[in-house]
């Protein structure tokens, strides 16, 4: 299958530089990068992991995203220059800024923010208009309803309204589940599209108690797939929700449901779509994460394309994966509304004969915001925006989160937890959402919420044995670096404040972490108890919400006065292109 080289990857940068413009010029009419050559008869547009970022954002892609075993050096485990070289992107181009961390701060001023739903709406309408409504489809891969203070207080209702106006026809979920069953169902009542998940089933107890399900015979809680008539062909979209919701989040949100990858059920379902429904294409709308999707594509047959998310990897070209039935293309479409995946399919009877794929960066300065969406966003934000616009601190450095082991946002959260809760050690989850803040630009409460807004934000302080602290680190480290992606959960390493350690990702589970030291260099003693502060616990906690703790610390003006106490020394991964040089 031919994947066309994306020539425009270079062109944006060239245009901006050769014209001598300090910034990209606004105006959709100048944005020829969005003039896609017509191809095939069906166009599927894909967004994923937008994390409710209604307005354009800065988001720095990772400088550490290590793959080990067969994942080493394979997309998405390439960062910085290695990424640019792999995909033929010019280092001084806008796309280098969109897809990588390369010279991020320098480029941020030049190319501006990305994403924003009013800008997305303009781009989506244009790309659908180019091929005709009846030949196109818009799908969302989940993590649409969570990631901002607004989405949190509105429990995702804001994003349902936005999704309806945007025209999302099918979606699956992950953080959507953390609002609990009742809110999820209420939101889906209002959602004009379909929520698809082939891998969510009633627990045996819930089935026995006659709990609500899409299909009682199979126990499937949600509709597994939908068939769309597009361009005179039948296209099946199968939903794959995040497989580890009750493990990664408190079980209390989804007590009646059981998840998992459910490869066999998926295979059976795909076979059924092929045999009984005579579909011409099968697309998996997945929240598995890219490494899981790549493995799944090698084992499950009959899927033409996996439109992937969860791991927030912006991968410009699909990865072809061979399996017993043919080839499956695997994509991953980034996060925070920065990208729009465009899948053009040439469909014949019963098969996909050719494919073009583009992952378009949503340059907000090249797109006029859609007026109706801009109005809706303004109306949704209005009741809260004043309360959250107070400036509470001004950072003296770039604040970002996305890296395997640490980032200034989380160092700040850990320092706030240790200071405000008087703890020796702080642990903060390795989330991959949360936007980037530029140095010297004031932070507001809305910014703090964009790093912390979850439905279980309660902080805690507890005593933990040194041995237990190490076990927690080992356990989470295995979620990242297990050689078998089916045993990974996605997300990054838990952030440790007041504690430094050495990590060898290539070691076996339980023996990757060593040389644990407290601030000041004292070795962590396995049998001593330490006072540990944290948040986002899967067990119920009672402390103040983390955003209040962080805001209080920021208001005190101590922000970066003390040296941040996080240090991770990496071993065993020399030359790995998942680390920026």
């Amino acid at each position, binding site marked *: 299958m031919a994947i066309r080289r994306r020539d425009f990857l270079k062109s944006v940068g060239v245009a901006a530089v050769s014209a001598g413009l300090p910034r990209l010029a606004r105006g959709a009419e100048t944005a020829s990068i969005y003039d896609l050559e017509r191809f095939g008869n069906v166009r599927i547009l894909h967004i994923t992991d937008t994390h409710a970022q209604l307005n354009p954002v800065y988001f720095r892609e990772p400088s550490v995203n290590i793959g080990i075993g067969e994942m080493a050096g394979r997309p998405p485990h390439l960062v910085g220059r290695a990424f640019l070289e792999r995909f033929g992107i010019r280092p001084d181009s806008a796309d280098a800024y969109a897809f990588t961390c390369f010279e991020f701060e320098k480029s941020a001023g030049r190319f501006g923010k990305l994403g924003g739903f009013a800008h997305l709406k303009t781009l989506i309408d244009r790309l659908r208009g180019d091929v005709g409504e009846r030949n196109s489809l818009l799908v969302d891969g989940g993590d649409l309803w969570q990631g901002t203070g607004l989405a949190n207080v509105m429990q995702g209702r804001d994003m349902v309204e936005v999704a309806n106006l945007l025209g999302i026809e099918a979606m699956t979920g992950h953080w959507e589940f953390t609002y609990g069953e009742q809110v999820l169902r209420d939101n889906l009542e209002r959602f004009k599209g379909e929520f698809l998940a082939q891998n969510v089933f009633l627990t045996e107890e819930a089935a026995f108690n006659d709990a609500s399900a899409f299909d009682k015979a199979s126990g499937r809680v949600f509709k597994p797939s939908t068939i769309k008539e597009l361009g005179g062909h039948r296209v099946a979209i199968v939903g794959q929700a995040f497989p580890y919701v009750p493990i990664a989040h408190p079980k209390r949100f989804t007590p009646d449901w059981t998840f998992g990858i459910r490869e066999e059920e998926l295979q059976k379902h795909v076979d059924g779509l092929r045999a009984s429904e005579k579909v011409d294409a099968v697309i998996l709308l997945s929240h598995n994460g890219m490494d899981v999707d790549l493995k799944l594509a090698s084992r499950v047959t009959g899927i033409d394309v996996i439109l992937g998310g969860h791991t927030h990897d912006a991968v410009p070209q699909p990865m072809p994966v061979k399996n017993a039935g043919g080839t499956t293309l695997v994509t991953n479409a980034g996060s925070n509304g920065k990208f729009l995946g465009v899948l053009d399919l040439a469909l014949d009877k019963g098969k996909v004969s050719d494919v073009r794929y583009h992952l378009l960066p949503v340059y907000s300065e090249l797109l006029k915001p859609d007026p109706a969406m801009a109005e809706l966003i303004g109306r949704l934000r209005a009741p809260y925006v004043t309360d959250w616009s107070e400036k509470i601190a001004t950072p003296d450095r770039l604040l970002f989160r996305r890296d395997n082991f640490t980032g200034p946002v989380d160092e700040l959260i850990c320092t706030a937890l240790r200071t405000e809760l008087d703890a020796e050690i702080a642990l903060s989850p390795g989330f991959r959402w949360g936007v980037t803040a530029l140095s010297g630009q004031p932070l507001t409460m809305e910014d703090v919420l964009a790093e912390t807004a979850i439905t279980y934000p309660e902080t805690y302080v507890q005593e933990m044995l040194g041995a237990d602290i190490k076990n927690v680190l080992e356990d989470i480290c295995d*979620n990242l670096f297990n050689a078998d992606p*089916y045993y990974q959960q996605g997300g*990054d390493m838990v952030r440790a404040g007041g504690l430094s350690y050495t990590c060898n990702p290539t070691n076996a*589970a339980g023996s990757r972490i060593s040389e644990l030291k407290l601030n000041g260099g004292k070795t962590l003693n396995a049998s001593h108890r330490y006072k540990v502060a944290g948040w986002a616990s899967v067990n119920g906690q009672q402390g103040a919400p983390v955003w209040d703790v962080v805001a209080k610390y920021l208001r005190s003006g101590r922000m970066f006065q003390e040296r941040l106490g996080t240090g991770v020394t990496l071993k065993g991964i020399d030359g790995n292109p998942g680390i920026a040089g």
Partner: protein
Amino acid sequence: MTATTGSHPTRRLILQGAASVALLGLGNLPFAPARAAANDKYPEEAFKLKNEADAIKALYGRTAEPSEKVKLDAPEIAENGGVVPISVTTTLDKVTSISFLVAENPNALAASYRIPDGTLPAIANRLKMAKTSNVTAIVEADGKLYSATKEVKVTVGGCGG
């Protein structure tokens, strides 16, 4: 984090009870329960052994060979280590027993079922797991032992992306 207990006398009683119920349920085989019960001496020694290989030997007196005909269904990562749903089906003929072992549990043998003549060889049960471990299903068929193994991860959870 899931609490772990050293031994599981209650669970064993329940498992025994479940097996009896299943047998009694076969109303069209009036002689099966009595015959099975006669052969079904509770393998007390095997349940006491720590090590997986020792337990298999105590139970069957020989070793098993891996077989694709034993289909073990278990989650990659357990949602709750206290109740991990694990099932096995097989296309093997003349199945007489099915057993489950969790290598890293304090006592490796978790459950053993006698399969009476004429019964579909399919068992679904929920096992308590102390920590990440290989889970092995043994199928005894026509006097031989066959097995399938899968790793099930038990994690403290949290911190998803």
